[in-house]
């Protein structure tokens, strides 16, 4: 029973981070209808940024978030303006290939600079854990989860209560109508991509204390992000949040009850099942 | 037999919305049936149900006496019923000739024969000179003619035309009207969806009026034009020219 509770809890905690990645991806899709295959690599960039600030400036990862997040917003905005904007009207297949290419440049560029050596970021609390009634909860995971909750709530409030947030939602709902109402949809696209990038980068920063950092780490996260987004419905922020937690749970339970080496495979099989039987997502909120 | 198509109590629901509701009518061979109604009346939905794009929720569609509910569009095409699309769908990166050949290949496996058939259809719509041009580069009028040539190449018995005159200037529209009349002489049966009332009155042997998914009226052009319910349904719709 403890094992079950243990894996459920860590699954939810990790799921929070998956949710963050998924929300970023679904925002990008919602506003621009672009399928961003470089999303996991954006997470990787966030990881390296955090590691660099820690290794050379001694900044704690949760503190350096204040630098990493805005930096990632700018990075994402630049990517959008330089590369993505031009292909918004191209074939979806070409958009996909473009983002694949960008991802390749990012991951292999990092490899050139940092080599494929695994880096680790060990803080004083990296391997500490709390005890909650017989279950051990990893400290960094818990902190990450709390930060995730904070960010998700803040994002939700931003989207619902602020003018810019509502403008983003309007653009996601109907680009032409939003344009006719005076919303600068190009700026919304840049903002959406910047935010999505920042969310991915933040997820990377949050994972940095507990994960190995290497250039190719992004790949599986991209696919998982898509699983999360499809599960929750393409374009639905709420859906991505729930989807993330669900995927975290699935993976964690699969590691214990199926086989540790097969946990990702189980996630992908679940993905195929969802695509086949409920492509509009478990909540049916897809914008596709 | 002279009845080529029969719709019996066809309904189509999308969730709670009834796009088509209990629609029934018959189409006789070599007839031109006009299908009219305000926007959103369910005309294209009916075409989609008939050709197998999706199956009707209720009711029967009988083609030449055979029930075709739930058949795939390619099977319906082989049985002799084809449709054009409200928003034209050219095979953009292929040539005009190749587009029509795709249609012709429904009846033959030989590219040579398909090419001949394709050229004949292009002659009918007077586009044989454009055979080698990319379909995606054509203006709207020619795209519509191309689409007609393409479906004609499948050697249909029943042709469904969905607003084939939409977006055309008067000269182009007149060309299409003449084409439709010519096709009737060649023995084709046609169901025509149009908003152009003058054209519908000229072309149709019989008219079916849809409104909000239901069949509102049916009869000769004269009967329908004088039907007060039909007039009322169109009040508020701009009288078309």
């Amino acid at each position, binding site marked *: 029973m403890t094992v079950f509770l243990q894996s459920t809890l860590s699954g939810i905690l990790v799921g929070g981070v998956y949710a963050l990645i998924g929300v970023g991806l679904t925002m990008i899709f919602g506003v621009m209808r672009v*399928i961003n295959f470089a999303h996991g690599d954006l997470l990787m960039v966030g990881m390296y940024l955090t590691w660099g600030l820690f290794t050379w400036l001694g900044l704690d990862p949760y503190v350096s978030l204040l630098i990493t997040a805005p930096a990632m917003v700018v990075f994402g905005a630049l990517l959008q303006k330089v*590369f993505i904007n031009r*292909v918004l*009207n191209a*074939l979806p*297949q070409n958009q996909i*290939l*473009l983002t*694949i*290419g960008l*991802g*390749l*440049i990012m*991951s*292999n560029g990092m*490899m*050139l600079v940092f080599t494929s050596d695994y880096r680790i970021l060990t803080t004083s609390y990296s391997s500490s854990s709390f005890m909650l009634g017989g279950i051990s909860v990893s400290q960094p995971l818990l902190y990450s989860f709390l930060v995730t909750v904070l960010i998700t709530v803040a994002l939700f409030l931003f989207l619902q209560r602020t003018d810019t947030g509502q403008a983003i939602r309007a653009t996601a709902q109907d680009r032409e109508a939003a344009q006719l109402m005076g919303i600068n949809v190009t700026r919304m696209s840049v903002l959406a991509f910047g935010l999505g990038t920042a969310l991915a980068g933040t997820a990377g920063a949050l994972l940095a204390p507990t994960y190995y950092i290497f250039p190719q780490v992004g*790949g599986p996260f991209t*696919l998982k992000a898509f699983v999360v987004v499809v599960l929750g419905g393409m374009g639905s922020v709420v859906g991505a949040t729930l989807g993330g937690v669900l995927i975290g749970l699935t993976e964690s339970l699969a590691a214990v009850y199926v086989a540790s*080496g*097969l946990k*990702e*495979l189980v996630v*992908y099989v679940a*993905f*195929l099942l969802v*695509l*086949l039987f409920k492509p509009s997502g478990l909540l049916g909120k897809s914008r*596709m | 037999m002279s009845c080529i198509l029969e719709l019996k109590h066809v309904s189509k629901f999308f969730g709670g919305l009834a796009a088509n509701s209990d629609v029934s009518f018959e189409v006789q061979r070599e007839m031109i049936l006009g299908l009219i109604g305000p926007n959103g009346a369910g005309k294209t939905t009916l075409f989609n149900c008939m050709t197998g*794009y999706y199956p009707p929720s209720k009711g029967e569609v009988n083609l030449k006496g055979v029930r075709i509910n739930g058949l*795939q*569009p*390619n099977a*319906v*095409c082989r049985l002799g019923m*084809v449709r054009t*699309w409200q*928003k*034209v*769908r*050219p*095979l*953009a*990166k*292929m040539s005009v000739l190749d587009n029509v050949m*795709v*249609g012709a*290949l*429904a009846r033959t496996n030989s*590219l040579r024969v*398909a090419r001949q058939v394709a050229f004949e259809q292009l002659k009918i719509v007077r586009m044989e000179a454009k055979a*080698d*041009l*990319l379909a*995606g*580069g*054509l*203006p709207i009028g020619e795209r519509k003619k191309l689409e007609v040539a393409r*479906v004609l190449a*499948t050697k249909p018995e029943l042709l469904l035309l969905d607003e084939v005159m939409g977006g055309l200037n008067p000269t182009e529209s007149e060309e299409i009207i003449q084409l439709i009349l010519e096709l009737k002489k060649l023995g084709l049966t046609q169901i025509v969806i149009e908003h152009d009332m003058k054209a519908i009155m000229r072309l149709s042997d019989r008219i079916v009026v849809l409104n909000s998914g239901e069949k509102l009226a049916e009869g000769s052009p004269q009967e329908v034009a004088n039907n007060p319910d039909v007039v009322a349904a169109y009040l508020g719709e701009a009288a078309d020219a």
Partner: protein
Amino acid sequence: MGDRSGALLPRARAPRGFSLASLVALVALVLVVALIPQVIKKPLILHMWIMVFLAVAQGAAWNLIGGYAGQYSVGHAAYFGMGAYTTMLLLEQHQIAPWFGLGLSVLNAVLLSTIIGSITFRLRGPYFVLASIAVAEILRLGALHFKDYTRGAEGILLSGIPPLETPWFAIRFVGKVPFYYASLLLAGGVVLANWIVQRTKLGYYFQAIREDQDAAHSLGINLTLHKNVALALSAAFTAATGALFALYVRFIDPNIVLGIDVSVQAVLICIIGGIGTIPGPVVGSIVLVLLSETLRNPKWLAQLGIVGYDSAPVAFIEAHFSNAHMLIYGILVVLVIEYAPDGILGLSRTAWNRWRRARRPEAPSQPSAA
């Protein structure tokens, strides 16, 4: 995702496709290339050619489903790896000669493609792409985990290929030359298959499906059947390529033959060269292989006589760039998508058209009125 049929393409003549004259030219080219090993013996140069031929086979095989039928699978590593593993396992575990192993590889791949097709072909656009990636990943992870069947991450090392006994002599697979001819034969075969498909009803139907699936359906085309045929053909050739690759490089593991790099490479070859054309995969292969092999083995430039074996450029590349080929791929694909989505072939065709129009004294073509 927006009505792209509304956009006007240039009012140009459609390319007529490869004619019989082109086929003769193709055969002549193959014959000329076949003579090369009789003249040039340097192993690194022959190695380059072999890698080019394998890439041509891989790209032209993907072209069938991706370029002609328009279904962008980014999971073709599934078939490549299936071919590689089937042949290697049969040879190493059961001593079955690779020419029979190849047949079984192809069969396995076709079976696999039928299963994958039945799952993924109901999905449209990006969902299809995602599903294809997921399937390949499932196979890779499975191969890593189920060590008893596949030897997992340890991989399979080729101990030796038995000689091929013919009535006149025995062909020993030693050195580069036998693989040169084998891969040339395979590449030629796949390109020929492309040519045949393009000029038959199959080709017309594939392209109709690519251009507008619903229109194709309503014109009498059985979507499921034709998509599956395209995928089966593509999978068969991809598996054959994977098998030959395995025999040539002599060592495989799940990441080498089932990794996403393999899938991406197949797509890139076609995109960069010119998707949905016959010369496209050939051009793309030459460009990609030249770049990646030069980075991996810069010493081949020395064998060409361009630079010395220990020269500065060779040393520089070896020191810094030996694994940069994926980076170059990424840069290339970004450049191509942004500036030349029809690939190198598309660029040359536009340049050719522009040159021809400039030479003619007639009025320039008018923009089409919408």
